[in-house]
């Protein structure tokens, strides 16, 4: 089986490290990564714990296929209680460090307590140590990465780190690995900072052995790579255009949240799209997009690598930003662009670079800036708070200034680091926050894509597109087309996506494979690698179990059905343009049906019967 059967426990308070066998009974029920780490987390932490206190735990978890030759098998997740939401936080990242951790012989690293001073975790196979990191505290992710590589004299070592924003208490700080891949959402980086853990550096030389049936695994992974290669989306669309191809699609269907979701279409969408990224700039004749890029083992390669025009105002006389780095993905481009009304592609790219450099989530950041811009335009926030900066929709200067402020946590950057919910509450206008359970929306307006309203409202980690990406069906026709403006059947659609995605997120594979693969394509790969008789049905059952476990945890943490809600703007203010004109989010129709399908009570509570059905802890 391709679990290493070994987990590492790091007690940061005591500075001790120990090894434990993996609970294989749980692995059979929760697979790995998201699901299995959540099972450990639920067992070991008090749901009422302070997310930034020593009682919270921080788990880095791989899946059984992480580090194997399965396509996209390089994923890991960070599981903790999120400071932005008070709910379960589970942020998934690609890059290379997940596979490296597995190759070092570890399924999971559980960090607990709080170190009395800054430290970093150094892992070389089974040799593990905590090293002082006082010299790294106060440094950006990029500087930290460089210094660790120099200090350890190992160019191949893989690093995940937090930046200055996390240290400053930004509630949506990320864990950044491999310079520009992010476990981005819910403030997992903030938790890492609260534990005085600056970085994790990993070198694995053991490889991933113990695949159950190596010959069958080689055969089935090769067959499934062929499926990805022959699929128009995963074989051609994503590598060529990246996720950013959606910008014009979502604008055209009238579901591109604009100016803090006051509108549903953005006049400059085309200027910040995939098509624009590939177009030579008028200023220097070079395109924003340099090339695509792949994470470990990935045969899709949707990643964007970009450069900014050296003469652009954001980077003039700043050569550290002139090179290639992680470019705009769709969600980031939307939050930094359409939601703030900024149509300057290089300004968005600069803000994205800064998010990576100092480790914070561009979705929550962009959406919080959008809320701040609305507060400014309403006269609630004034130039007095912003050192004279005019925070107006459409201002690229304001966007770049906000990114720099959140990176350092200075001045108004501390307010922006609170996230949209707490910012709007602080200034007495909570209704202007476009959040669910304290987390900012991604890039689809629920008035124009109805299933996403239910997706956001019921996501266990607060508003999130990745928990059930019904856009695939409602807009893109994958696996089959449904009407984005209708609420009919969406409760079942959302549940199906939620359960399947929870399973995929627990395997070590990337959810983008599901544009070509179903669980029928994934199950034979898991089954060839792992003992347990893995079928699509067993994976789906595990996905549903994981979803209910997460739900049970957030209920014990104090969230209720009343938190499965959307801002009034989306429930009361109809879309003004496009196909959704006149429509609001139909949550009132979808939510009761969803609870019923889930087998929960009419106010969204898990029942003992449901707990018993999935064998959840009492």
């Amino acid at each position, binding site marked *: 089986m391709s679990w290493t059967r070994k987990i590492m426990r790091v007690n940061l308070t005591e500075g001790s490290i120990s090894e434990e066998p993996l609970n294989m009974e749980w692995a059979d029920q929760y697979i790995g990564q998201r699901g299995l780490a959540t099972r450990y987390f639920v067992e070991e932490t008090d749901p009422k714990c302070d997310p930034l206190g020593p009682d919270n735990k921080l788990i880095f978890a791989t899946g059984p296929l992480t580090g194997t030759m399965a396509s996209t098998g390089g994923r890991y997740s960070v599981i903790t209680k999120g400071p932005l939401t008070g709910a379960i936080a589970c942020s998934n990242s690609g890059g290379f460090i997940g596979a490296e951790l597995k190759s070092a012989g570890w399924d999971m690293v559980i960090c607990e307590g709080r170190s009395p001073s800054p430290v970093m975790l150094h892992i070389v196979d089974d040799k593990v140590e905590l090293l002082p990191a006082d010299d790294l505290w106060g440094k950006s992710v990029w500087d930290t990465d460089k210094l660790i590589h120099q200090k350890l004299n190992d160019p191949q070592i893989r690093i995940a780190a937090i930046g200055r924003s996390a240290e400053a208490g930004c509630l949506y700080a990320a864990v950044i690995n491999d310079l520009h891949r992010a476990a981005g959402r819910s403030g997992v980086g903030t938790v890492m900072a609260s534990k005085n853990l600056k970085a994790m550096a990993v070198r694995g030389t053991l490889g991933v052995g113990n695949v159950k049936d190596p010959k069958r695994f080689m055969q089935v992974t090769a067959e499934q790579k062929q499926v990805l290669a022959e699929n128009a989306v995963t074989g051609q669309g994503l590598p060529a*255009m990246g*996720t950013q191809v959606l910008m*014009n699609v979502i604008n055209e269907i009238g579901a591109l949240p604009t100016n803090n979701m006051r509108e549903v279409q953005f006049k400059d969408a085309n200027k910040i799209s995939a098509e624009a990224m590939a177009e030579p700039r008028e200023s220097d004749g070079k395109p924003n997009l340099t090339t695509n890029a792949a994470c470990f083992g990935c045969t899709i390669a949707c990643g964007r690598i970009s450069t900014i025009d050296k003469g652009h105002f954001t980077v003039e006389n700043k050569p550290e930003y002139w090179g290639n780095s992680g470019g705009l993905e769709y969600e980031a481009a939307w939050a930094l662009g359409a939601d703030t009304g900024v149509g300057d592609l290089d300004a968005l790219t600069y803000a994205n670079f800064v998010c990576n450099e100092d480790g914070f989530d561009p979705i929550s950041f962009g959406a919080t800036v959008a809320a701040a811009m609305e507060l400014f335009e309403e006269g609630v926030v004034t130039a007095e708070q912003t050192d004279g900066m005019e925070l107006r929709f459409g201002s690229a200067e304001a966007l770049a200034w906000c990114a720099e402020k959140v990176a350092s946590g200075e001045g108004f950057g501390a307010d922006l680091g609170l996230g949209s919910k707490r910012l709007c509450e602080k200034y007495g206008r909570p209704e202007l926050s476009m959040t669910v359970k304290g987390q900012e929306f991604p890039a689809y307006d629920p008035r124009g894509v109805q299933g996403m309203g239910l997706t956001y409202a019921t996501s266990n980690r607060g508003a999130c597109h990745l928990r059930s990406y019904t856009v695939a069906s409602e807009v893109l026709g994958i696996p089959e087309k449904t009407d984005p403006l209708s609420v009919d059947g969406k409760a079942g659609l959302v549940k199906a996506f939620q359960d399947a995605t929870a399973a995929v997120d627990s395997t070590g594979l990337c959810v983008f494979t599901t544009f070509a693969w179903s669980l029928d394509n994934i199950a034979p790969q898991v089954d060839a690698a792992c003992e347990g008789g893995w079928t699509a049905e067993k994976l789906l059952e595990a996905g549903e179990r994981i979803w209910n476990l997460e739900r049970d945890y957030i209920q014990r943490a104090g969230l209720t059905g009343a938190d499965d809600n959307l801002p009034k703007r989306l429930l009361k203010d109809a879309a003004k343009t496009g196909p959704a004109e006149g429509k609001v989010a139909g949550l009132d129709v979808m939510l009761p049906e969803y609870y019923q399908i889930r087998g929960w009570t009419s106010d969204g509570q898990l029942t003992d019967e449901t707990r018993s059905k999935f064998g959840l802890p009492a």
Partner: protein
Amino acid sequence: MNVTFKLFASLATYLPDDAKDNAVEIEVGRDTTPNQLIERFRLPEREVHLVLKNGVFLQPFDRNTPLEHQDVLAIWPPVAGG
């Protein structure tokens, strides 16, 4: 009558040179259908996936319904993101 014709992603290369922001205004005869425009611009059948009329998805069987003055027809190959 006039319609706006938009092509995105890999289909953008099928637009005429005077297209701007992936769109071109064209004059068409009455009763022109989406399928007739797809044929006129020589779009490969397997790359015609997401066809939107005024932002609303057209099922393949709807693509022989005539367009109206000032309609916007936008077409993508199979794409996805997220």
